[in-house]
């Protein structure tokens, strides 16, 4: 097992630059998730690590060794593809054994390794079947089995769960997390699903437009998003962003007027902004409560999920606002509603989308 370092990786396809100077240091045995919207370059970055694409510039180190120009098999990586990439004409056994057959491994050892992988992945009674006879989840496990048998230094996963239905995805998330613990391996996982990122990752890399927006633990990203993009990407439902104007600011706080006229004093490092600046106040739907003295919204749509009531409304002059309220909250569609939020829970983003750091946040954010 090994560390994985990316140093100033850039990638262009013709004149289109898809990755801009990306540097990351992934620790030994760490589970790192690359997350971002479609086209952010996350899969390209993974393929560069795998050796399926060549970086235009930059260096890749695995276990302290420069593998930038090495053949994939010499990098000590193995990869699980989104489509599983199972050989349809081969049995499960032969699929798992494929990398070992390529290496011309001795028969007895090959069999031991395949059986071992099969028992870890509960595929022992499926070894003689062909991939076409398996369910989606089982196919995914075969693909993982094929990557396990080689004992790679780094496992790479390219959106491995995106072809599965929601329930199975949940199960497989748990299985993958357990697998990570039992293999004690360095894993890099690509997804566009922030729930997968939050639930499985030791640390998350949020990518946007070929840039790293932020690299940190899930709770760090949740409580201290460095940019507006990260703030709105992490968390479900998405963070509300309300336009506001600064009416006073100093190093310990900012006084803002939200669109619609409600005033708040927020404990963030306000040195960078001045009176009259336009900012956006970020409020997570789960941080608001019903209560007097807050800001009013008019409720448009109400989704009662049982445990929570997701309430969609508008604030002031038409800014959309979402609140995650208790399941039995006294809310009705078409009615006005007064909401309050603790100033400590608010985020403030300047005009360029960068955050003004919050003075206080839950301790969990600091140590992940």
């Amino acid at each position, binding site marked *: 097992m090994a560390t994985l370092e990316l140093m100033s990786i850039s990638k262009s396809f013709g004149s289109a630059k898809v990755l801009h100077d990306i540097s990351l240091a992934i620790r030994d045995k760490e589970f790192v998730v690359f997350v971002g919207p479609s086209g952010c370059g996350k899969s390209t970055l993974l393929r560069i690590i795998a050796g399926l694409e060549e970086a235009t510039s930059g260096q890749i180190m695995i276990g302290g060794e420069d593998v930038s120009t090495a053949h994939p098999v010499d990098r000590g990586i193995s990869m699980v*593809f989104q489509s599983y*990439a199972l*050989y349809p004409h081969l049995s499960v056994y032969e699929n798992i054994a*494929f990398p070992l057959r390529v290496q011309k491994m001795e028969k007895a050892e090959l069999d031991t390794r395949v059986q071992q992988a099969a028992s870890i992945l509960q595929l022992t009674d499926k070894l003689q079947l*062909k991939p*076409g006879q398996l369910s989606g989840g089982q196919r995914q496990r075969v693909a993982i089995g094929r990557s396990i048998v080689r004992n790679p230094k780094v496992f790479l996963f390219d959106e491995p769960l995106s072809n599965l239905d929601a329930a199975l995805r949940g199960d497989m998330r748990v299985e993958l997390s357990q697998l990570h613990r039992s293999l004690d391996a360095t894993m890099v996982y690509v997804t566009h699903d922030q729930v997968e990122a939050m639930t499985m990752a030791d640390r998350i890399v949020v990518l946007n437009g070929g840039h790293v927006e932020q690299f940190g633990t899930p709770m760090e990203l949740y409580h201290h998003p460095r940019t507006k993009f990260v703030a709105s990407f992490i968390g479900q439902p998405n963070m509300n962003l309300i336009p506001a104007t600064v009416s006073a600011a100093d190093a310990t706080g900012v006084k803002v007027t939200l669109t619609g006229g409600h005033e708040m004093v927020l404990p963030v490092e306000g040195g960078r902004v001045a009176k009259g600046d336009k900012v956006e106040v970020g409020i997570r739907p789960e941080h608001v409560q019903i209560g007097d003295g807050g800001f009013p919204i008019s409720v448009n749509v109400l989704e009662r999920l049982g445990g929570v009531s997701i309430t969609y409304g508008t604030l002031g002059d038409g800014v959309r606002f979402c609140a995650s309220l208790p399941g039995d909250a006294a809310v009705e569609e078409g009615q006005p509603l007064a909401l309050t939020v603790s100033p400590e829970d608010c985020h403030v983003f300047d005009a360029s989308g960068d955050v003004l750091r919050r003075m206080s946040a839950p301790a969990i954010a600091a140590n992940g």
Partner: protein
Amino acid sequence: MTEISQALPSGSAMPRTKTLSEAVFAWLLIGPAMLFIAVIVAWPLAETIRLSFMDAGLGGEEYVGLANYQELVESRKFHQTIIRTFYWMFLSVALKLVLGLIGATLLNAAVPGRGLFRVLVMPPWIIPMAIGMFGWLWLYNGYFGILSGTLMTLGITDGPFEFLAYKQSAFYSAVVADVWVGTPMVTLFFLAAMQGVSRDLYEAAWVDGAGRWYRFRRITIPQIMPVIVSMSLLSAIFTFNSFEIIWILTEGGPRGATTTLIVDTYKTAISNFKFGEGSARAVIIVILLGIFALLYLNVLKFVNRKYGTK
């Protein structure tokens, strides 16, 4: 269902009418095709079988029972024709498959201008067969042909060599021309099959360290195996029945060296007006190809089991 039939005791007439009209409609749809098949397949086939029991010529017909078949069974020349036909078929099909596989692999490779190469494969297939064969007649010509000329220039032969004038060279020259005509179709089918193989499979194998040849052997070939098998059956039938190529190049000569069953049948029935004997040959061709196709279908079943997804 019970509830409905109880609720609608008098409604049974409706579905009945509907079924009848559906049947009529179905017959209307398949009728023209049935008529077509009856006129151009079934009737000629029946007529051929009937004629095969006749001594039929321009003068008239006389029933001779199995005499035509008996004559063929006892004829050494006919045995040789059967052997020659199968040799012709296996050799030509094998060459087409090998060349098609090589061609498709090259055309599938990521080389610049491969679109142009793909188009350049087509002419032998597109050019009318007769025109193509006249081209080959010129190539094989001893006095004006480029092949003979090249052999002389290189000093391999010391005089003009007429490719189609000698038994051995005529047979293999005809095979070459047949391969030239038949390879493009095989190539394009193989290419289409290869393009259907998921790129991920190759990438996965590449990451696992599989080299080019290993990937070809363990991914490409098994993945396109069903196409290889069905294509070889099609190609075998085409080649078995290949007539124009041989007829234009050699008319089955010299001294019968390129006479395959189909050429023999034509010569007997059409050139010599022996309709009865010709028909007996045609019936034997149908039987041989039938047996061959049955064997092949079993091979296909086996291949699908071995290389299929289930």
